Every structure is written in C-alpha cells, then in structure tokens.
C-alpha cells in the first residue's frame, strides 16, 4: 500500500513526553521507509510563531499555524508529527477538521508527577510565580475527549507508549505492520500439503 499522509498530533502538558515520543515515532517510521516531518512546539515558537506569547489568542494562532503546515504536509502524503501543548480543545478540533486524516495522541501525566520531574525547571518557576500563563498551573489544559490514543507516561516507558501508538496506526491501516511475514518455509510445506489434500497442487 502506498503511503497516505496523515497528521499525528501530540497534546499534553509541558514535560509530559510529547517531544520524546514524537522523536521515537519519527525514527521508527523513517526506518520503515516513510516520509516524516516533526513540528515541535518549542522549535516552532523560535521561528514560524516567533513573537507569539501565551495568551489564549496567541496560543490558538500558534496551533493554527502548526496545523496549517501539517495540512500541507499531509496532503502531499507526508506523515506530519506535531508536538505542542495545544491546551484548547476547540482549536485542536478545528485543526482536526481542517486536516481530516488526523490522529490525536493525548500524552497524559499527572501534574504532580511533572512538577516533581521538572526536567526543564519550568514548573518550579511557574509555581513560584516567575512564569505567568503556565499551562496546568495558572492556565487551563482541556484534555481531549476523542483522542485516538492515550498514553500514560507516568506508568509506561517511552518505548511502550511508542509501541502502542504504532500499533494503533497499524490498526487504522495508516501504516503497514512492521515485519511483513507471510509463510515461512515450513509453513509453505504445510500449505502445499493442505492444497494437495484438496487437489489444488
């Protein structure tokens, strides 16, 4: 089956593991011969969305821009992977409807765990009031109601989460299963015998 484009959209709180998972999936899909592009929220904010802040309007604009690029890639049969907090349900749905072939992955992790982990030191600063409009602290995060995949990064390793995402994509027939195994040599002998039994060989 030829590759069809689709958008794989990771949403979740800061530090939940969106970028990590996006990069694992990117590597695995590329190894299978797919064309893949990752749009990482942190990187997008340094170029495509440079100058935008964290008000609801600015956040929505950022998501619409990422969605716009994902749509261009998707319609050219590239797999577009977006990793952005994308806290608002309405604009995520808007992007989903615009793109059509859209798979939402909710990267779920309790905020207590994230604040404890605090890889980038952001939660500490937000909780101390040094960072304003921080999602999950003093800015809302609206969990997806319709995500195709929910991964729980406090309970699963990144490899486990990635495997579940890939399995779901296979299940949706957006990608073909990894190892195309048909009949082994032993199987072939058995197939031959069975077909002989019915007079077909």
């Amino acid at each position, binding site marked *: *089956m030829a590759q069809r484009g689709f958008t794989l959209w990771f949403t979740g709180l800061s530090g939940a593991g969106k970028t990590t998972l996006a990069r694992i999936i990117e590597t695995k899909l590329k190894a299978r011969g797919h064309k893949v592009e990752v749009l990482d929220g942190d990187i997008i904010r340094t170029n495509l969305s440079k100058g935008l802040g964290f008000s609801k309007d600015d956040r929505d604009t950022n998501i619409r821009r990422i969605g716009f690029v994902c749509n261009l890639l998707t319609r050219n049969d590239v797999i577009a992977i977006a990793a952005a907090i994308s806290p608002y349900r309405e604009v995520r749905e808007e992007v989903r409807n615009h793109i059509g072939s859209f798979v*939402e992955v909710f990267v779920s992790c309790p905020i207590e765990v994230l604040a404890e982990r605090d890889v980038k030191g952001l939660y500490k600063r937000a909780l101390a009031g040094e960072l304003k409009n921080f999602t999950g602290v003093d800015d809302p995060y609206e969990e997806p*109601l*319709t*995500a*195709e*995949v*929910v991964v729980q990064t406090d309970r699963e390793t990144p490899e486990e989460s990635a495997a579940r995402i890939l*399995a779901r994509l*296979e*299940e*949706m*027939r957006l990608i073909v*299963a990894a190892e*195309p*195994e*048909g*009949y082994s040599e032993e*199987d*072939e002998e*058995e*197939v*031959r*015998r*069975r*077909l002989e*039994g*019915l*007079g*077909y*060989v």
Partner: protein
Amino acid sequence: MGLLDKLKSKASKKRAVLIGLDGTPYTLARRFIEDGTMPRLAEIASRGALLQMDTSIPDISSVAWTSFMTGANPGRHGVYGFLDLQPNSYKIYFPNSRHIKSETLWDVAGRAGLRSVVINVPSTYPAQALNGILISGFVAVDLNKATYPPELVARLQAMDYRIDVDARKVKESHDALMDDVLETLKRRVAVLLDLFDNQQWDLFVGVITETDRLQHFFMDAIEDTAHKYHSAFREFYTRVDGFLGQIAERLRDETLLIMSDHGFTPIKQQVYLNRWLLDHGYLKLKENARSIEDIADGSQAFALDPGRIYINLKGRYPNGSVEHSDFRQILDEIKQGLSEISADRASIVKRIYERDELFAGPCLDAAPDLCVQSVYGYDLKGAVNKEQLMDREVFTGMHTQDDSTLFISAPAAALRADKPHITDIAPTLLDSMGLAVPQGMDGHSMFKRG
C-alpha cells in the same frame, strides 16, 4: 479504541452480519429449503431475498473470498489462484494476505471507527491488524499468526478451536473425514457464537468452511439416495441450518447477509490442461516434472490451476519463447484447440475468456492470458504429471461459477434486479452500514438508490 470510535460505534449506524457458507450452491440451498432439510434457512429466506450469484473467475476460494473482502476484481487485488508464479520466474509462491493489494471491507469500516469481528475468511492469513478481531481461514497454518489481537489465542486454544478440516483424513477413510468435518464444524460454531455474543462489533463476518470440504469428497452422495453418506450429507446441512437459526435468533435490527463463494456440482472427469498443452506441442517439461517450475525450454504456454493459461512470452518469463508478434496467433490457436476438447460427444468448454474480458487494474501484468471455464462436471486442473487428459481421483465435487448463494435480509423490491456478483457484497454491506463505498471497489451495492 478511542472514545470517538466508541461513540461512533454506538451511534445510529446500522450493524451488519455476514455468514459465509463456503461452496454452498444456491440450487442446493433452495432444494434443502423445499425438502425440509434446512427449516431455519427457510424461515430466514422468507424474510428477505435469496438469490443466485456469480462468483469470480477463477471460481476458487482464494480468488473468490479475496474478491468478496475487497469488492474488487483480481486485476486490482492481485490474487488469481491458490498458487502463482513470482514475477519473471517460474517459481511458485502461495499468495497470502500480504499479497492482497486492495483495501478490505473491514479496513474501510475501521477507518470510519467501526469495529469488525472477522472469523475464518479464507486468504486472510497471516492475520493483519484491524479495528476489531480476526481469525484467519484457509490456508492458515499457525494459530498464533492467524489471530489478531494475539491475546485471543489463549481463548481459542481453551475452546479447542480448529482452523480447518484435515482433508488428508480421506486417505484413512471417508468415515474419518466425515467425523473430522462434523467435529470441526462443532468447534467452529462454538467460537463463532462466543465471539458474536461476547465481542463488541459493528460488522460480524463468520465463515463455515466445512460445507466446501464435505462437497469436495461427498458431492456424489447428495444425488444418490442409496449412497452410504446421503443422510449424513443432509444431516450435516441440518446442523449448519441450526447454526443459521442460532444467528437469526440473536439478531435485533442488523442487516443479515448469507453467502457462498462458489457453487458445487458432481465431477465426471478431471481434465488436465497441461497434458493437452504437452500433447499439442505447446508445453515442454523436464523429466519427472512435479510442477510448472520444471518447465523446459521451447515452451509456448502452460496452465495453472484451475483453468489459467499463460503464454510463455519473451520478456515476461525467463525462458519465454513466444515473440510478441506471434502472441495473438498462438493465443487463438490454443483457444480454438481447447474449445474442441470433448467428452460424451460434447465440448467440455463453456467459454474461454481473454485477460481483458475479466481483469482490469494495477495487477493486470500477473493475470493469466486465458481463463477456461468448463461445463458442469469437468474439473480443470493444472497438474503436470498426468499421462491422460482426463481421469478421476478421490474428489467427487467441483466448483461452479454461476450458482453461488446470496441472501439479503431485505425485500426483493428494495434490491437491484440483475444477478449479483461476489464483488457486490462488500459495497452492499458498507451501504447497509451507512458508509460510502470507496473508489477501489468494482462491485455495487445491491440496494436500489433512493
């Protein structure tokens, strides 16, 4: 399953059930309704349309079921037989689910968020991921590779599920084979009903293969009331009827389809087309040839089961000997010659199709140049080691192309009046579930528009 899928699954979309009876002829189903062998089918048939259906050419299960599940012709889906030759080679391979080039019915349903349970459809091995569950049918070898998701294997093992009848039992005795047919049916029905009851589904597809196995070896029993297995044959069908009744009892407002992938008729003779090609100088074989892999230089044509003829064209095969400029002439000669094969002073050939009359699509390069369709009773075979043009083996039944069964639980007035074709079933099911029929399907819904 995502929440969206769950919501969609519970929405107003109508569920559908398809029960497959491998090889059950329409005429036999009618007869068993009339003579009381299948009272439950009689009840079911009274609430819908029981129709005679055409199947694929070639009319064997691998091609027919693939045409069913994809709604496509072999030129699109790429399966022309139980065995085929690798490209630019005489090396045989056995097509499996990975060789199917078209989307299946359950791929389409899954994309719409609908969940399918698919049990024992031939040519689905190895089981591929889907939104739902799938247990592969013939020729599945390993239950682990035949089952998706893998967690289901333990349950199937606990229920002593059997993938297939062991047809080789006939070498032991016909009694042993009949016992195996009945036991396999029993276990199959148990799993079909268990998954019907305990799985969530929008589309349920369950196939009984034992009908086909019975008919390959006992087809002579049905016409002959004095035959040792006459009543056993009918009792077997009464059991199948009981299963159909059990399904019917469980239905609420689902659309029900019952189908077979081809019909059956008693064999008079098996006819070996490679013997004919050898005798007429078109085919040359190495000594002690066992299959077409042992083709010798200078061959102009060869046959594969059941009635597929290939011209050994230069550029298409490693030892192709026919120039493109001679292709038409050789083809016409062979068509003429084959049409003259006769028995009991009548031709055994009903019609010979050229490739483009039957097939269209991206897999056309692998298509046979001719497909020979025989009259009832003369089973065309691709064996290479036969001394005579015709003989009889242990088999007493052969497939037919124009006598498959199709039941749709809708009044005949709601359906198209023309004869259904096996590729119409997938579009009909999708239509009944409120889904659009994708472009890659050649068939058309049997439901009238509007």
